[in-house]
């Protein structure tokens, strides 16, 4: 199986499995965030519930970090090999029916910016200002206050939008190409699969983008 993991095919399985972990994570992360639209207290209570279960939190964080590292490492090795395989470029880039989507051609660039976003995002929120609040007699972190504070900064919102739109393209390509990488793509799925991937990506990113919109519309 070591030969398998070193092969181009095997490394696509690694990209797919680690990507799938994050496809699942961003969906649940987005769904949880939607609670902010219900109430600030509920949002805080949800955050508190997650950090209260330490063993589960550490397991989940480890899986996410390991997946991310494996995803990035494999992506780098594949990208280096791919660039080496095609060193000279064509004078003209095709743009007709024989071309490819910009999203599929620029996964490495999108990924790099999304990585920068993840790091900044952790600094801003997970390791950001520690405000406290009291919900139903329980002392907890006031993430709601932090979210309002951060999303009132236009520069941060602009960066958030750019990163999330790139994430949308990254997810849309990933969500359909894992079917090919995993070897479960069949002729009958081909047409609907890209639609499914786009619907998924738009729901996830649309959900996230509703947060700054909520701050702008409700709290301004």
């Amino acid at each position: 199986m070591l030969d398998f993991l070193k092969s181009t095919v095997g490394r696509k399985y690694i990209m797919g499995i680690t990507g799938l972990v994050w496809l699942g994570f961003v969906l649940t992360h987005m769904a949880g965030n939607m609670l902010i639209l219900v109430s600030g207290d509920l949002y805080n209570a949800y955050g508190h519930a997650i950090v209260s279960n330490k063993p589960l939190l550490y397991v989940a964080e480890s899986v996410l970090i390991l997946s991310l590292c494996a995803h990035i490492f494999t992506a780098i090795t594949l990208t280096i090999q791919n660039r080496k395989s095609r060193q000279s470029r064509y004078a003209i880039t095709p743009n007709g029916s024989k071309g490819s989507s910009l999203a599929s051609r620029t996964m490495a660039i999108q990924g790099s910016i999304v990585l920068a976003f993840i790091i900044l995002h952790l600094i801003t929120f997970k390791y950001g200002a520690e405000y406290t609040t009291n919900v139903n007699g329980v002392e907890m972190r006031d993430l709601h206050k932090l979210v309002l504070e951060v999303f009132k900064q236009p520069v941060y919102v602009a960066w958030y939008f750019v990163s999330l739109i790139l994430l949308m393209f990254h997810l849309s390509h990933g969500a359909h190409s894992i079917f090919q990488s995993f070897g479960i793509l069949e002729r009958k799925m081909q047409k609907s699969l890209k639609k499914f991937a786009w619907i998924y990506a738009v729901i996830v990113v649309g959900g996230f983008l509703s947060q700054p919109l909520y701050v702008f519309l409700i709290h301004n």
Partner: protein
Amino acid sequence: MENKKNLNLTLKIWRQKNNQSKGEFKTYDAPNVSPDASFLEMVDVINESLVVKGEETIAFDHDCREGICGSCGFMIDGNAHGPQKGTTVCQLHMRNFSDGQTVTLEPWRAEAFPIIKDLMVDRSAFDRIIKAGGYISANTGGAPDANAVPIPKYDADEAFLSAACIGCGACVASCKNASAALFTSAKITHLALLPQGAVEKDQRALDMVAQMDSEQFGACTSTGTCSASCPKEISLINIAKMNREYLRASWTKKEAVHGGDMA
């Protein structure tokens, strides 16, 4: 009404003496081209005029000129085999171009396909992949009865579609990673679907993927340009099939066993 007027074209063609030399684009006029001519016939006419002038002719691969042998192929304005889908360059007709157009011709560009001369490249990397397992082992003798082994219609049709690959190299040429995944997977799929090929399908998947990786091809990133550029429109589902064949073959790879009643 179809445009029947002859065309005047300007061609920018990649000229390269050999693998060592540095190539460059040279501009040629193609006057009075019949819209019914094939693209290669148009280049033939330019070559004839070059012969008359005592200049070196433009080298390009071709053989059957019926779209079935896989010899021809180059980039036309960045499209493998030109703008028309599902067509080899020999079957591309000049009616697809318009009068006064400038058309750029380049050879397949991939490290695994070194340029031999002008628009010709060395595709023997494909031959080595086929040699690694793109065949079935059969005893010689009389041809077996065609219908002796029943094959489900679905499998036969899918195998036919995969077998349509002519090995022209358009998939590699159009892929930004110069990946040979579509070519290799088409052969793995074609033979794995048929009972004659299924016997050796695990070893074939292991050997052909290993050979593909040992050549200078890149990895598949599912951009889909290979299938879009393929003159035989080989589907991406072949790559999926190769991936699962390779996973299964790696997982169930057998080791020699001894003992018991095997004396």
